[in-house]
């Protein structure tokens, strides 16, 4: 890789050094089915509070599926179901009694393709905000600005907040989607290959903002890009055929993997 890799890596993960990280989201014996297809098999792992955790693995290994269980977005599609437990601060979110609205307010999501709504830039960010909170116009503007700043987009759009979001470039649209997700102040943000459709400069901007914001949120990022995982993540989980092979810090996964399959994957022997 290039210089970006170095700068990001140098500024990136060193938070949990002096405190024991708390588990924000815990998966316990999670199974997932698309109809009869068994996509996740007994996955158990924890995502730490205030850290970036990357999920890597070859296509079809269940990375995105895993992510989509955490905010129960899979429930949109009949025939998809998850068994086992996923805890958010100790409470099982797979219980039907767990409010979807609460879950999704606390666990935001950013998708692979930018999905701006056909609304103005301001309204895109304010859309969910208005649903959860009663804010004055001034407070709303402030929250929108904060979110856009967090997503490193403010300087580029501050003069055209009323312009349609569809007029932004792909990279800007994706940062807008991140701002939109951050606006409701979630505790966890799920990112499903958020940069795979973007150019290197936009990718660098998004990586930078994730590193900057890492302390304020729990980020879980699915990526095909091993360098990205190495640059960003405090911990990386390697998934293969719907099973968790190994999870560990950068050193463990990328330099000194415990499992031979992890070693084969990160050294490019398959995948």
């Amino acid at each position, binding site marked *: 890789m290039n210089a970006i890799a170095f700068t990001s890596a140098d500024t990136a993960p060193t938070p949990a050094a002096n405190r024991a990280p708390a588990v924000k989201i815990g998966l316990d014996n999670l199974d997932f089915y698309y109809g009869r297809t068994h996509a996740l098999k007994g996955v158990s792992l924890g995502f730490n509070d205030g850290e970036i955790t990357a999920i890597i693995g070859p296509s079809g290994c269940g990375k995105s599926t895993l992510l989509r269980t955490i905010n129960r*977005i899979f429930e949109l599609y009949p025939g998809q179901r998850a068994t086992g437990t996923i805890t958010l601060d100790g409470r099982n979110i797979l219980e039907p009694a767990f409010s979807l*609205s609460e879950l999704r307010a606390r666990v*935001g*999501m950013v*998708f692979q393709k930018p*999905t701006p*709504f056909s609304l103005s830039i301001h309204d895109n960010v304010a*859309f*969910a905000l208005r649903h959860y909170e009663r804010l004055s116009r001034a407070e709303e503007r402030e929250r929108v600005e904060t979110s856009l700043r967090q997503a490193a987009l403010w300087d580029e759009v501050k003069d055209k907040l009323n312009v349609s979001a569809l007029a932004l470039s792909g990279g800007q649209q994706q940062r807008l989607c991140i701002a939109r997700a951050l606006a409701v102040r979630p505790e966890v943000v799920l990112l499903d290959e958020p940069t795979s459709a973007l150019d290197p400069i936009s990718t660098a901007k998004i990586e930078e903002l994730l590193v900057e914001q890492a302390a304020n949120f729990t980020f879980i990022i699915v990526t095909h890009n091993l360098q990205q995982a190495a640059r960003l993540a405090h911990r990386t989980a390697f998934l293969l055929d719907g099973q968790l092979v190994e999870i560990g810090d950068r050193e463990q996964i990328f330099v000194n993997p415990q499992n031979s399959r992890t070693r084969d994957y990160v050294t490019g022997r398959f995948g």
Partner: protein
Amino acid sequence: MIIAPGLLARRKTVNVIALIAATATTVFGLFWLAWILWTTFSQGAAALSPRLFTEMTPPPGSEGGLLNALFGSFVMVALGVVIGTPIGVLAGTYLAEYGRASKLANTIRFVNDILLSAPSILIGLFVYELVVAQQGHYSALAGGIALAIILIPVVVRTSDEALRLVPNQMREAALALGVPQWKVTTRIIYRAGVTGIMTGILLAVARISGETAPLLFTALGNQYWSADLNAPMANIPTAIYNYANAPQDEAHVLAWAGAFVITAFVLLLNIVVRFFLRTRTPR
């Protein structure tokens, strides 16, 4: 790669034949349309006069205009749109957003397609039984209802299709914010599909503004001015029908004028739809 010369020549011949056949059938189809338009416009344009828009329909044998019929058509088409559009759009929303691929939704789509091609005279008779026979008299309201029943399946179909064209990722992205589905549908999905929905409504308006059969049995027609929804009302299609059937030349002129006005309106509406599509489609 070398293609055998015989093969190449053969393909070229087949290609020319296919091209000629396709072009010829297109020309054949368009020829009749052009002829109809030409007759309507040449005969209709000659019949145009300001009196058309200022005077009432005359009794057979005298001169007059089409003011009451134009007004009546406008009122009943508007009535059809007001009654039919909400039902059509909401039903389309059910199919695209809630029912999706369920058996019920697919059954409704199938039945809706049958309704879409139901002969309009049947719909006229149906509303005659349903409204006119019950009330004991013809009325503009019955005409509006009949037009609404013709409009509904068109709007259901186009709304359903317009909403299903909205990418699923947008639904997921909006629902992932924890916003309930009704809000996602009304605030986000409608906005993304508005062009298609509006197009469907305008096309449905074009369709019902020329319908004659359902109005013959419901609104009947009226030689005089009437703005009473509960009474028979004049309208362009039945005026054309009556004047074209009359023996007098003055009546034929009025029939041509009516045909011209309605054709021009439908044509204009189609152009507006295309313009709308071009300007409102993002990217």
